[in-house]
Structure formats: structure tokens, C-alpha cells
């Protein structure tokens, strides 16, 4: 174990932390000291600003050829509860977005039958009919799948999607990179190496993305640290990641049995350690849909400078026992940030400032 004092010295003199530092941080129970260090790091990146976006989630289908054990969302075709939206359905959802919404977050199951052209049509339709909405869509897992459907390389696939209207990529599907854990959790899913390769390719053609980590299931502290360090390594090369978003595992209705929710300590520690290890990421995001509004607000003292957005209306966490309401209004988000004594900044998908609340 490396002492917290030693790590603190490194943090306050802006030195990079290493694997052993990260493990020691996760093993520490000194939550407030972690918060102090992470706040210092966050302050250096964003000052008092806390970002959010007015966005809408669309999950076009829950039909998925993969069977990840941590997932309560996926269904087989024809199974009860399976659904799929047509392009017209998706468009009408997008059109229902309130004024002020500027981002669509579109992720799905891996549908067995839809051809690649369907995805291009979807993007083109949205781009044509709702041009004010930035389309952030397809996890690296979906991109890999679409490339296979298209019979193209990842790069060519991404270029076609971008031409059709894709603006950036979300960070989902990273789960945990450790191959052993990943095999147990989601054997059919692309490997961690492949996930990173897709992201590197996307960054290479100028598409920005986010990155995630699913924690609180069967992974070890070492697995978490290694995951973060692989992201940091890629970010050193590409600079294409915007935000890192740790995702707390929700066990209800999944095949992984253990306590249903992560603890408040674990949530805050994970955010803080992420802020400290990922020194080359501009933003650490607390995803309130998973963490709850209360931990999200407190996390602003634990390294977080982004609380995602209005989200309307997410289905994936809800299926696994998520307890938050489907959405927060812009005013709710602003209040949450203000009452924590910070400055709310509405942003667009690529972190241009839309409005600052004084």
C-alpha cells in the first residue's frame, strides 16, 4: 500500500499516478481525503463549473444477439417484452423533444435482421428532419457489429455513418476490459482490445467519444485500475475522449446475484479515483440515472464536473431496478448544481458553452 500522504503530494504537484497509487486509493477508507484530492484535480480542469446538456435518450430496440449477464434490458426477437422502433417512431420521438434539447443519445441492442442501410437511413432521416439535434449514437460494440453488417472495415463504417449524420460516439460497452471477467459477464461481446481499437479508429478520423466502466459486479479493484489505465494510455495517443463515466452495476433482473446496488462510498471513491488517474480526460461525469440525484450532487465534491443531462427517457437502467425518475428538467439540474455551491454551465455535446448560470 502506498500512503495517502505520498499520493497527496503527487496530486498537489501535478504528477501522474501509477497502478499502485490507484489500488491504494481504492483500498482507502478515507473518503474525504479522496474527495479533497479529486476536487483539486477537478478544480484545475474546470474550476467551479459543472456541465450538463439538454438531451434525449432513444433506445430503438432491446432485441440483441448478445446475452450479457449484467443486462436486464435485452430480449430475443419474439420474446415477451421485446420491442423495436421504426425509423418513423424514432423520428417522432426526436420531434417530441422539448425546445432547448440539443443532443440525441441513441444506443440499442444488436438487432439480428436490420441491414446496415437501415442505420444510415435512420441517421439521414434524423439529420434532415431534426438538424438542430447532435446525434451521439452507437457504442463501440454496435460499431463493430455494424461494420460486420456492412462488410466494411471499422474506419469505412464510421466514415459512412458520419456522412449520414453521426456526430459522436457514446462510451458504452466498455464494461471491464479484463478478459477473464469480461468472459464471465458477456462472452459474446467484443473484447476490451477491440473496444479500444474501435475508439482509436473513431478518434483517428476526428470523431469524439466518451468512455465508461461498469463497476460493482465481480471485478476486483485491480481490474478497475487496469481499465482506467488502458483508457489513459489510449487517450495519451488520441486525445479523442471527452468524458469518463463510471457506471454503477444494478443487479435486479440480471443473472449476476449480489447486493442490488453499489454503496455510496464505492460510487464516490470510483468517481474520485477516476478523476485522479485519468489526468488526461477533461471531464468526469456522474450519471444521475444510475447514481441517484443525491449521490450525484455530493459527487461534485469528489471530482465530478459533469452530470450528464435531462436524459428523457432512459430504459436500460430502469429495467435493472434503477429508482430515479425518468428525467430531470433543466431547472432541476441547475438547482442541484447551484445548491452544491457550484456554477451550472449548459453545454452542447462537444462541450461548447451554451449558457452559464451566475
Amino acid at each position, binding site marked *: 500500500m502506498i500512503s495517502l500522504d505520498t499520493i497527496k503530494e503527487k496530486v498537489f504537484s501535478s504528477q501522474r499516478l501509477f497502478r499502485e497509487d490507484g489500488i491504494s486509493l481504492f483500498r482507502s*477508507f478515507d*473518503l*474525504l481525503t479522496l*474527495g*479533497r484530492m479529486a*476536487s483539486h484535480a477537478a478544480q484545475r480542469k474546470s474550476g467551479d463549473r459543472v456541465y450538463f446538456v439538454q438531451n434525449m435518450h432513444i433506445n430503438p430496440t432491446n432485441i440483441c444477439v448478445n446475452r450479457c449477464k449484467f443486462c436486464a434490458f435485452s430480449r430475443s426477437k419474439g420474446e415477451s417484452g421485446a420491442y423495436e422502433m421504426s425509423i418513423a417512431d424514432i423520428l417522432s420521438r426526436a420531434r417530441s423533444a422539448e425546445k432547448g434539447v440539443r443532443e440525441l443519445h441513441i444506443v440499442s441492442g444488436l438487432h439480428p435482421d436490420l441491414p446496415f442501410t437501415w442505420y444510415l437511413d435512420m441517421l439521414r432521416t434524423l439529420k434532415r428532419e431534426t438538424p438542430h439535434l447532435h446525434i451521439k449514437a452507437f457504442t463501440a460494440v454496435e460499431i463493430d457489429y455494424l461494420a460486420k453488417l456492412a462488410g466494411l472495415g471499422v474506419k469505412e463504417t464510421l466514415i459512412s455513418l458520419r456522412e449520414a449524420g453521426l456526430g459522436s460516439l457514446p462510451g458504452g460497452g466498455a464494461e471491464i476490459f479484463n478478459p477473464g471477467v469480461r468472459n464471465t459477464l458477456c462472452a459474446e461481446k467484443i473484447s476490451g482490445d477491440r473496444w479500444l481499437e474501435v475508439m482509436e479508429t473513431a478518434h483517428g478520423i476526428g470523431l469524439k467519444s466518451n468512455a465508461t466502466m461498469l463497476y460493482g459486479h465481480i471485478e476486483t479493484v485491480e481490474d478497475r485500475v487496469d481499465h482506467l489505465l488502458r483508457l489513459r494510455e489510449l487517450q495519451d495517443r488520441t486525445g479523442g475522449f471527452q468524458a469518463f463515466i463510471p457506471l454503477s452495476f444494478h443487479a435486479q433482473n440480471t443473472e449476476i446475484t449480489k*447486493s442490488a*446496488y453499489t*454503496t*455510496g*462510498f*464505492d*460510487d*464516490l471513491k470510483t468517481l474520485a479515483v477516476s478523476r485522479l488517474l485519468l489526468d488526461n480526460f477533461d471531464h468526469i461525469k456522474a450519471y444521475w440515472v444510475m447514481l*441517484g*440525484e*443525491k*449521490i450525484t*450532487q*455530493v459527487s*461534485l*465534491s469528489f471530482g465530478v464536473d459533469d452530470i450528464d443531462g435531462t436524459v428523457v427517457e432512459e430504459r436500460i437502467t430502469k429495467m435493472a431496478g434503477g429508482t430515479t425518475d425518468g428525467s430531470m428538467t433543466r431547472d432541476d439540474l441547475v438547482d*442541484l448544481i447551484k*445548491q*452544491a*455551491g457550484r456554477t451550472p454551465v449548459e453545454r452542447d455535446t462537444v462541450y461548447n458553452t451554451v449558457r452559464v448560470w451566475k
Partner: protein
Amino acid sequence: MEIGTIERTIEGGGRISPEEGLTLLREADLLTMGELAGSVRKRLHPERIVTFIVDRNINYTNICVNKCKFCAFYREADSPEAYVLSNEEIYRKIEETIALGGTQILMQGGVHPDLGIDYFEELFSSIKSRFSIQVHSLSPSEITYVARKAKISIADALKRLKASGLDSIPGGGAEILVDRVREQVSPNKIRWRDWMEVMKEAHRLAMPTTATMMFGSLETREDIVQHLVRLRDLQDETRGFTAFIPWTYQPGNTELGGRSATAVEYLKVLALSRIMLDNFANIQASWVTQGAKIAQVALEFGANDFGSTMIEENVVAAAGISFRMTRQEIVNIIQDAGYIAAQRDTRYNILTKEK
């Protein structure tokens, strides 16, 4: 006023003034509040133990003459949802509590217009003749009501209730101990001096009590500090309070409506209470109003007790908030934060430490 000066006072083991408390609440950031509360907590509880009690809330009636505007639990006497539990129902609930390892029952109403001191004397003595359990019951509002109804003093009412089996008194109904706020949120309820009088008399009779505070409704920060100072003053005199329990107003289904305090406000007020109430041994986290996650984080903001397993809880649930925790979940969460979990009794004696 310099935060640095206040910090030095607290870290040196000194007492802070109301003005200093207010400055902290206004200006100190969340982590500073946690660190200061942590230093007080560490001085009082160096052993890294977090306690909890196994008990049950038994709400013998929901009929209430007070009709507080922040309350979602009470009913009018003629409401189809109004009830008074029979003694048999109460016994059954106590049996279940004991079977689950419970050591205490917390009985509170409703201030029912027809239930007088005789009713409670009979109830408590019948409970004591049947069960070995701590009767931690009747908030000051109920005690004041039965005393007035019987036209006897608070002291005499408490003596009779104690003789019949009442062991200790929960600190509910304190709300905010400032009459301006009480007149707005609970105009029919006893005023702050009445609440204090019951506690003072109870302490004189060697009956321990707790103290609560409900915040997040219409009070100001000054009111919160005033509340804490009033408790601290009485505690200097009597030493009868075992614990302080701040919790947040829950606006669902209430006449008062509006919003409640955020998590950051909760943690700051909790920390301030640990800092200011230097003569209170124990501060409780409120998982019932905050949920398990924030209640766990509250252990770094001055709380050293996780409250009760709440085999049954009806009042907060009526406002639409229904967090549930089993004993095992409470133990897990305490241990996950790096503390030793221990079951305690009403007087904070440790019964068993968990492995």
C-alpha cells in the same frame, strides 16, 4: 469571521458560538464540514464503531389533533383510513420484533383526542407484564396532551407513565425549535418551550431521551443554529439526551408541499450538528429519509449511529419515501465504509459486534 479561526477552535476541542456555527453553515464547503465533523467524532468515538438498534416503530393511531402541515401520516377521526391499533395487534407486533432480535419498540401516534393517560398506563403495564422489551415511546407532544387532558403537571404525567413501564422518550416533534417556524408548519402543536419542558422533566426522572430536528421546510439557517443551541443548552444542564437525529422534511402528500433539502444540505447540517452538539455523545444518520447511500456517506460527516433497522415505519412512507434496509444490509454498509458494526440497546450499550 474567519473559517480558519473556527476550524482551529473545533480542532482544539473548543466550543463554537452560534455566530460561528452560522458562518460554517453559510460559507464552509462540504468537505470542510465533513473534516471538522470527523475531527469531533474521532475525539468522542476513537474506536471506529458504528452502532445500530433493532427495533420497530409502532404507530398505535394515525388520528391526530395536531394536523401538522408537513405531515402525510395523520387522518381525521372520521376518515376511512383512520385507525387505532388494538392491544392484541400491538402485542403481535412486539412478538415479531423480539423474534427478530429487537430490543426496543418506539410507539408514537397521532395525538388522539380520546386516548388519555389511563390508556397508556394500562398499555405499558400490560406490555411490560408480557414482554421484556424497552418501551421508548410517546413524543413530548403526546405527553403534553395527556398531561393537560388529565389536568396534571408534566412531571406527574411522566412519573405515572414511567411507573407503568415507559422507559425512555423519543425526540420526535421537535421539528424546528423556533416558534415562528412552528406557527407556520405545525400551528396546533406544542411550542418549543413545551417540548423542552418535557425533555427536562424526563431527564430529571432519569429517563433518557433523544432529540430530533426536521429541516428543509420553512426554516432559515439561523433557525437551524438556534435549534442546535437550545438543545446544547439543555444538555449542559441535564445530560439526558442520548443522541441527536436530524432528518429532512419529506414533502410528498403533505399540505405544505414544496421541495426538501438536498443531499449536500443534509450532510452539511448533519456535520454542523456534530460540531455544535459537543455535549451529545451520538449523532444518527437517517437512512429512512436519505437512503442507504447517503446514510453511509453520512458516517464521514459526523454520524456514528445508523439508527434503527425499522422493522416497520409508516410516517415517512406516507410521504412517498420507502427506503427499506435489512439488518444485514445495515451491517454490510457500515463495514463497507471501514467501520465495525455493532448492535446497541436504547442507552447505546453495545450488545454484539458483527464479524
